[in-house]
């Protein structure tokens, strides 16, 4: 098997990892808001930061895969 055949599979694995992480966060946030609806704003504010960092991980993986395929 050629090396470049495995590169998109690696990207898929990274994206699966990021999607699992983000969905866990969203589920935990939804459950926390369901327990205490008054704290909805605070919980959303706290959850946003790790959410965007995780999304950044997936985007960084895409960029590196692109570079690996081009260079």
């Amino acid at each position, binding site marked *: 098997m050629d090396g470049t055949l495995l590169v998109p599979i690696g990207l898929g694995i990274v994206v699966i990892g990021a999607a699992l992480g983000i969905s866990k966060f969203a589920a935990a946030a939804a459950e926390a808001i369901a327990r205490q609806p008054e704290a909805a704003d605070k919980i959303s504010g706290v959850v946003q930061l790790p959410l965007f960092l995780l999304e950044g991980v997936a*985007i960084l993986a895409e960029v590196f895969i692109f570079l690996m395929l081009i260079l």
Partner: protein
Amino acid sequence: MVAANSSHSNQTVLEQVGPNIIHHVSNSDITHPIIQLPSFFGIDFSVTKHVLMLWLVAFIVSIVVILPIRKYLSSNGKKKSNWVSLIEYIVEFVKDTIAAPNVGPNWVMTWTPLFLTFFFFILFANGIGMIPIFDTIGLLDRFLLKTDSHSTINNLLHGGVTATGNFNVTAGLAAVTFFSIIIAGVKKHGFIKHWANLVPHGLAWPVYIILIPIELMGLFVKPFALTMRLAANMTGGHIAILALLSLMAIIGEMFSAAAGIGVAFVSIPMAAAISGLEIIVVLVQAYVFTLLSAVFVGMAINVHH
């Protein structure tokens, strides 16, 4: 984009599509710039497509944001147009939701102007990239004006550009964040204590051997992630739209022209839907860059490990 190229080469469509998409989102060639400028210290300062878009965005932001605010302030708050009310809403949003919780009430007035600059510049740069100015000029040029292939108009072409889609632009913005973090920490704690605050105190000494290189790497990885996040989000959205639209040409060549036209009924609504998604991404990415800069500056000011 494909219509703007008056290409009669004998390459197949499949071979032309990839380079076409890449030309659309990347910078124009430095050897054929739009305005030729001299080189200082070995760096060629000629104006290419992305630089022109940068200047355009800066010009538009200053006219649209700075001038109405000055007019409102100089009339002592009497004449408030709707547009200034909208700007005031955004300013309050950035100050209360992004700056104040992260930086702390003592430093809000120091750092909010920087975050507002980030927010407005990135919002306008991303948004202007969604407007297909250069595609429209290209169509006009191809069918109406028919200038030759190295004229100024043709140099401007090959696609409308998102200024923040170029990772050098976002690297410049992230460099501002990098130095802001250092300046914020030095202003609050003094020069040596800021660097001492990089690691938590009171740990056993073998932990520091691992922790200090990790924290030093983190210093550089955080702005690097900021650059790549913004640039890749902007470029990726445009590439997705272009790939969908190129599907028509590819299917038209592989099967028949009628099949290509049939695919258009799927491809163009999908491209419109993804453009709508792009508008959400434009807003979110401006917000995320500003929020993360505020969080990093706040982490340098209120050190809590």
